[in-house]
């Protein structure tokens, strides 16, 4: 496998990992398991409701910056950075 293919594989692995988190906080905590999580309180919030209206959005933001940071590392590691 050449360098570009290895880089692409590492990229795919990273994207899949990030998308699992993306799916888990929104579709998982915010929709599929919302009623179960609502039994838990976070201050005045029911936890499932909090994920649906606040938590998932915060996670999305962190996720994109994490992805960008890791990708920049991969760019350097595989030596495919832009000039």
């Amino acid at each position: 496998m050449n360098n570009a293919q290895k880089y692409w594989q590492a990229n795919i692995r990273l994207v899949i990992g990030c998308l699992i988190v993306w799916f888990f906080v929104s579709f998982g905590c915010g929709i599929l398991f919302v009623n179960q999580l609502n039994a838990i309180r976070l201050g005045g919030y029911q936890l499932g409701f909090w994920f649906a209206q606040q938590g998932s959005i915060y996670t999305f933001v962190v996720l994109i910056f994490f992805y960008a940071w890791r990708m920049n590392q991969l760019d350097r590691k595989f030596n495919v950075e832009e000039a």
Partner: protein
Amino acid sequence: MTNLMMTTYLVVGATFALYLFIALKSRAKNTGEFYVAGKGIHPVLNGMATGADWMSAASFISMAGMLAMGGYDASAYLMGWTGGYCLLAMLLAPYLRKYGKFTVPEFIGDRFYSQSARLVAVICLIVASLTYVIGQMKGIGVAFSRFLEIPFQTGLFIGMGIVFVYAVLGGMKGVTYTQIAQYVVLIFAYTVPAIFISFQLTGNPIPQLGLGSTLSGSDGVFLLDKLDQVVTELGFSAYTAQKGSTLNIFLLTMSLMIGTAGLPHVITRFFTVPKVKDARSSAGWALVFIAILYTTAPGVGAMARMNLMHTIQTGEVGSPEGNLAIEERPQWMRNWEKTGLLGFEDKNGDGKIQYYSDNGLSAAEADLAAARKAGGDVTAAQAKLDAAAAQHAESKFAGFGWKGNEMTKVDNDIMVLANPEIAKLPNWVIALVAAGGIAAALSTAAGLLLAISSAISHDLVKGMIAKSIDDKTELMWGRVAMAGAIIVAGYLGLNPPGFAAQVVALAFGLAASSIFPALMMGIFVKRMNNVGAICGMLAGLGSTLGYIFWFKGFMFIASTAMAPDNAANWWMGISPGSFGAVGALINFIVAFAFSSITKAPPEHIQHLVEDIRVPMGAGAAQSH
């Protein structure tokens, strides 16, 4: 002229002067600047511009109202319209930036080596963008007529004029810098009243925390618990409880996410940054700026609902003194009655307003009236009304002498616009909200118009009809197309087709079912060929349009609908607005099926795919 109007004129006028000043400072000199601002926008600034581009009149004005009325179920919009940025950042933006061209259809046409694919993409883009822009034009007209009390048409012409100046002159360069200014205006306008109201209700000035706090002077009762209690006492379902089916909420969220990632005017914004890595981080910055508004909105919605309930239900439910007397209703209600967005009817003639859920009684009355007006058979509507009336007579509310819900009209849109008046905030805050609403609508309209004009001048004129034109002629065409798009959008804003309210489903459905899958497969599936991509796009588009038209009527002409648009008739309970995700799935399946039985794409296309997957420049990559 009242004091408030003077302030509003000043604030709105000052923002307009700012936009025009920026426009004059940033004129586009060539097509590169006109389409993608010369690819020289800093990622943080681009994120800010993307935020303004993305947050439309719907985000600014309607979303908090949808949350206030829908409670938990409206979370689909919050997650859908933000989660799409993860898909954009990880699956599309960096690769499309690497490809380095001007428009979305151009990528689709090149990658699938097909002018037909490019044409399908152009049509999807124009339909999705044009339907979307109608809503913005309407929003501008409403904001002007309500706050500056000038006629709707005049307001719309002023808005068109402003967009005309900076979009035609400046292209993407002018639009980007104005959008940055508009973001600042709209985010102030949104958060300042929210901070005031959150502080009034909970003592915590941060709405994101206020929503999870206890009410001031309540001995530790949480705001959301109190709200659940207040609305359930009045027969509504609890604010934090799920009302729709899980499958439908799931698919609506998914459709909005992939639709967001597939909307061309948003994707184009990531062509303007200098490098691939800037495209990645810029999506993150865009979401930061969007999240500031989107995490504030749930607080605004819940607190507006709370204030509204308390305004009308002043005391104990069922006691004669518990309801607002019509004579004593506050000034903001009188103001909004004039716009037709708020209305009441004293059904039991007690001189007070009752706002409660009468379990479909009022809806059945309205249906019967509509059926009578249409002049058809009314027996079914009459039977439905009788059943609802019988059910109501059994309820506790009949015992109070109530004869049906008397708040006959509470439009979602007034929640944000009336919020500062409901909370009795100072005049400058109200003026700021007017300027913010106009900024949100203008910035989105400009982004959409730019996507339309570049599709026409770059993809249709330069790409298909007159390939030999030089840069200067193409730039001229870009400006002509922009001017034409503004006039068409203005005309549609003045004479909105009956379906104006439903176009959101259409725009997201188109983007989700056709554009997003085509782009994603173009990058991630090297084997995907022209036949697969075109068949997939047409299948996704066809199934989604077919499903929407089945319930909404062909071209949204209601009389041609094949089945009533309600949960009982939907396939597996999937609403037309949620179908985009299913359309995307159909697109993927058809594309893979057709691609696997036809020839693999030619060598140079496979090289192109390999090339866009690495950030490094094409020339350098080959030397490895």
